[in-house]
């Protein structure tokens, strides 16, 4: 079965699981910016949680199936059309040869995941099929999809069950987010007042927002780094604050080393939400210590396990 891209949208890439264990070589994670939504889409077509799928950005994607297929969509809220007729997210869709599937612009949230039974056949590089755009590897030739691209879908043994994601397991995209976060390594470089404000500011996401990171606008923080800080490891979810006082939040393609004060770290339980933030969205950081963040992560896993048994490998 072949997928033909008709409209690629702003930035549609093939994404799977993260690259792990190679940050010391400068290799970022990449993979689905919202791994929970990727796993939910794959669940509906009988795939492993991190089988390669399409990740759309803001504007969606339109494609044609050359052959029959089973597909499912999860992620940002957006209209879905199958041959021009309204179709639904969060359920298994049976597609016939020649069918056209369109994911419309995201109304809330930033990214949708379009999974196909069998998974998309993609370049596996350094242990993952995920596209890493800055270095141009993984996915389809390491790049975003273009109109006319053809993608192969892998074989599958049995037609998947026609499923719907139960309502309580459909993440609701919003424009106003709360992210639990712990102090970062250099939080001391923020003046005391700023340290308090970090967890008491209604941030808005700046216009420069991509898979590497997002600016948190709305307050200026006084940071006493003197502009010279020894470069130190950073991770997806790290919030750094440069001298201009405007923090930025690193996302799934985060570089491995950074030179700005690390003032906070989004907790593992909420890191998947970073992939749904879009310019103009509001964000509040909720302070946690590591122990309470751990309890909340375990509770979140307990909640999701009923629908996604492998949840602790997903988020």
């Amino acid at each position, binding site marked *: 079965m072949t997928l033909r891209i008709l409209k690629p949208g702003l930035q549609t890439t093939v994404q799977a699981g993260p690259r*792990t*264990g190679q*940050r*010391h*070589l*400068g*290799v*970022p994670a990449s993979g689905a910016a919202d791994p929970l939504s990727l796993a939910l889409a794959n669940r509906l077509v009988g795939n492993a949680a991190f089988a390669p799928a399409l990740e759309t950005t803001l504007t969606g994607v339109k494609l044609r199936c050359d052959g029959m297929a089973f597909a499912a969509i999860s992620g940002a809220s957006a209209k879905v059309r199958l041959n021009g007729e309204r179709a639904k997210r969060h359920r298994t869709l049976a597609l016939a040869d020649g069918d056209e599937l369109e994911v419309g612009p995201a109304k809330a949230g930033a990214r949708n995941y379009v999974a196909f039974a069998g998974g998309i056949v993609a370049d596996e*590089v*350094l242990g993952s099929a995920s596209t*890493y755009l*800055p*270095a*141009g*590897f993984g996915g389809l030739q*390491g790049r975003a999809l273009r109109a006319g691209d053809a993608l192969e879908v892998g074989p599958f043994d049995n037609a998947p069950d026609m499923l719907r994601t139960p309502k309580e397991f459909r993440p609701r995209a919003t424009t106003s987010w709360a992210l639990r976060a*712990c*102090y*970062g*390594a250099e*939080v*001391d470089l923020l003046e*005391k007042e700023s*340290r*308090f404000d*970090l*967890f008491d500011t209604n941030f808005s996401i700046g216009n420069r927002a991509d898979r590497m990171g997002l600016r948190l606008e709305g307050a200026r923080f006084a940071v006493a780094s003197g502009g010279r800080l*020894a*470069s*130190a*490891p950073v*991770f997806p*979810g*790290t919030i750094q604050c440069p001298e201009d006082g405007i923090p930025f939040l690193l996302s799934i393609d985060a*570089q*491995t*080393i950074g030179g700005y004060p*690390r003032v906070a*770290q989004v*907790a*593992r339980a909420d890191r998947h939400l970073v992939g749904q933030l879009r310019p103009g969205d509001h964000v509040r950081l909720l*302070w*946690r*210590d*590591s*122990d309470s*963040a*751990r309890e909340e*992560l*375990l509770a979140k*896993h307990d909640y999701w396990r009923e629908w996604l048994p492998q949840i*602790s490998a997903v988020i």
Partner: protein
Amino acid sequence: MPSGEVPAVPAPEVFLCGDDLVAAECADTRSAQALADHLRESGEWIECVAGIASCSAQFDLVKVTAADAAQRMMTALQTVPAARNVEAGLVDVPVCYGGDQGPDLDEVCRLLGMDRAAFIESHTGGEHCVDMLGFTPGFAFIGGFDAAREVPRRPQPRLRLAPGSIGIAGGRTGIYTLAGPGGWQIVGRTPLELFDAGREQPFLLRAGMRVRFVAISEAEFDARRTP
């Protein structure tokens, strides 16, 4: 509400920097690298990354509490072997200095009060050591250019550097492996491909390797560049 303090950990040089991240301060890059290698060999961590003067490790928060992770880091600090004198080999890195390949060479010379010939002699004169790879795949932080200790980064990063660009900042040489933005002062460019995801060995350099820079002409650069 923040209570004002990062949760207490058992030693000042070990600290948490996230719910699933623990870090240790290190005397220098070599010891940070040795600690990261030591942690990685234990197989207990998801990521072990050295910085210039610290090392961070990511743990599986499902299986390990912060207190346990901090304790493991403490133990690692006590058991880490002294920074190894890795016999990881000596790599000659050919560099075409100045001109289009090194637009900041004259500025760096001005900052150092040297002429071009003296700069090139100084940069090619000794052995350097790869402190770490990081930032983007294969970007090499190469220490040992003390003459340029006071050379700062550019006030404004350049938006697009060619892969192979050789930058100078703060006593280090950096080699950009990918096209993209960068803030180091660019003095030249190597025709070597330091990173190629398609190669069996994607990374030409590794932390601990020794490097010698060798000056080449523009013509040699063009000849050695893979099309």
